[in-house]
């Protein structure tokens, strides 16, 4: 079964530092997403990405966040200057088609801890 791979599984960073979370989506998927889940809370949408550009983003996804697909396989989320409240699980997801017609495949997540 194809998987979405995320690295690292756990990252600890100091407040104010930049972090890059990495994802390798499923190879024939065209739509990519980042979600986050603060401990004990809902899974929240951050951003969707298609055809090398952002298609939608939430109010959480402010100027401190950026996404990139630097090559044909990786999809990254950068947080420029981390805050304590950025501590959460970050999930990458991908889908073959848009409109979630066949559901999304999520990775296992990166647990980000900002200290």
């Amino acid at each position: 079964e194809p998987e979405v791979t995320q690295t690292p599984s756990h990252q600890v960073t100091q407040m104010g530092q930049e972090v890059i979370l990495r994802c390798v989506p499923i190879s024939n998927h065209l739509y990519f997403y980042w979600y986050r889940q603060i401990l004990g809370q809902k899974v929240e949408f951050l951003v969707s990405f298609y055809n090398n550009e952002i298609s939608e983003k939430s109010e959480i996804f402010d100027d401190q966040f950026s996404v990139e697909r630097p090559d044909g396989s990786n999809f990254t989320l950068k947080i420029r200057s981390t805050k304590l409240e950025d501590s959460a699980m970050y999930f990458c997801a991908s889908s073959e088609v848009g409109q979630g017609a066949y559901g999304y495949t999520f990775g296992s997540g990166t647990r980000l801890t900002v200290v």
Partner: protein
Amino acid sequence: SQKIEQNSEALNIQEGKTATLTCNYTNYSPAYLQWYRQDPGRGPVFLLLIRENEKEKRKERLKVTFDTTLKQSLFHITASQPADSATYLCAYDLTGGGNKLTFGTGTQLKVEL
């Protein structure tokens, strides 16, 4: 504002029984609803999707119904097993474009021997 609500109380049932989980939404009528399973510390795993013109969808021991009049989806697991213990999330796309899922808080299911 649009909301998607799941019973936040955990559901404990005995092995072999049918588990029924509820997802209610307000205002906006989604074109489809998705159901996911989430284990602790893991990402959501897609289970089923049901469209607004479908009353029911089945996959092995899983069944989902969608009642657009009641604004409700029910998720059933028949012949439940301890391995079914997890948190189950419903989700839909408010924009209709399918690129921005809004998740419910999830219902934790525990299947006991």
